[in-house]
């Protein structure tokens, strides 16, 4: 059985952004902090640290989750994707380009969580309605944009993807337009 005392680090092996990664953490460290501090993935944002703001949202085993409400030690054996994996990590993904075109971010603190939320939605439902996008975004707080431009960006991306008949590809890097 996997177990550790409060001052004892535990080994974790997980697939993170396509690569097998190993790290050691204390039980009390959240997955968000583990990814930031052990693996240097600073795209994972830590806002409220108790599940209400959505800034820390990442994708674990293909499902969006709050990384502030998972423990680092619970990542063992999981497949994790953070914003760093979008667009292969080099170029902006077409979804990110749509965010840029529509001014869907200002300070950007909420953006990686919103991208993960949108990515999970689009993987499941490539042509969502505006209402569906708004409902999914209800779990993410943005203090800057007023949300309309975020919804616009996601709808624009979905329309382009539909026109080109392409499914959501997290690794895509070329312009969608």
């Amino acid at each position, binding site marked *: 059985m*996997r*177990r550790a005392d409060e001052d004892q680090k535990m080994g974790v092996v997980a697939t993170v952004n396509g690569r097998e990664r190993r790290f050691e953490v204390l*039980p009390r460290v959240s997955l968000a902090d583990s990814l930031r501090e052990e693996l240097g993935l600073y795209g994972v944002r830590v806002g409220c640290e108790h599940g209400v703001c*959505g800034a820390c949202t990442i994708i674990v085993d293909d499902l969006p989750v*709050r990384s502030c*409400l998972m*423990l680092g030690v619970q990542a063992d054996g999981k497949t994790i994707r953070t914003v760093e994996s979008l667009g292969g990590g080099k170029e902006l993904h077409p979804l990110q380009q749509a965010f840029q075109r529509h001014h869907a971010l200002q300070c950007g603190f909420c953006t990686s969580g919103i991208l993960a939320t949108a990515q999970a939605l689009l993987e499941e439902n490539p042509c969502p309605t505006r209402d569906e996008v708004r409902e999914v975004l209800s*779990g993410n707080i943005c203090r800057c944009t007023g949300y309309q431009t975020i919804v616009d960006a996601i709808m624009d991306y979905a329309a382009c993807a539909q026109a080109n008949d392409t499914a959501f590809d997290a690794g895509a890097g070329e312009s969608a337009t």
Partner: protein
Amino acid sequence: MKFPAFSYACPTSLAEAIELLNDDEDSRPLAGGQSLLPMMALRVAAPRMLVDLGNIEALRQSVVLPDSMRIGAMATHAMNAASFDIWMHFPLMAQALHHVAHQAVRNRGTFGGSIAHADAGAEMPLVVSALDGVLLLDGQSGQRTLPASEFFQGHYTTAIEPGEILTGVEIPFSDMDWAFEELSRRPGDLAIAMVAAGVSVEDGVCSQARLMLGGISDHPIRAVEAETYLIGRELTPNVIRAAAGMSAAGIHARSDTHASADFRLSLATTLMRRALTQLATGAI
């Protein structure tokens, strides 16, 4: 805030989990962590040890029996929302699941965790109470079962003894038609007020009724007087208005930053009227 320090164990069998919980009286089961971890971050809870139930496969399983369905404690809200069996047998639960939190929380938060946590504004305790679910508990002194009416005792308070694990809930199939109505500030927030209403209509009149209110008091409340009133009556607008008024009468409502007691009672009446109207227009 960061979590206070704790030790962690991730057993793979129920027996091991029960042993761990009984070894240290300051240990707590960790299900989806979507309520316990926020409480730890806010320093409302600081258990010395967390026993992660996430690797106990048996707790995740649900089975359809001849007259009921047993839903595993560790089935997530997302699994249940996608379950064809739940959609078919318990449309009330399927409707209520739409109101539980946001996708990212539903992907981790569990049915059993929600019931064991027993937040007054949580939907699953109301659903399990309305459908007469039987809670399945396992501990060092063996297994026991409890009806929902004896299980939920107050806000964050249930009949689970320290060291016990809720393994699942057995819910009998219902032949009533059901409606669910809720008011919360934003989609995915806990309910300020919610109702579950079930009726059977035979020869134009109501032959069976079950009316439950949640979020109003500190635990789900059954409106027995209003149920009795409905029996033998046609669900006309006047009858519905009278039953809705009766259903909230005499409840000691809670008051908090989201809503006053009076507002909650007025919401309860309105939501009950909407639920019964929905049933009347669909059922008659």
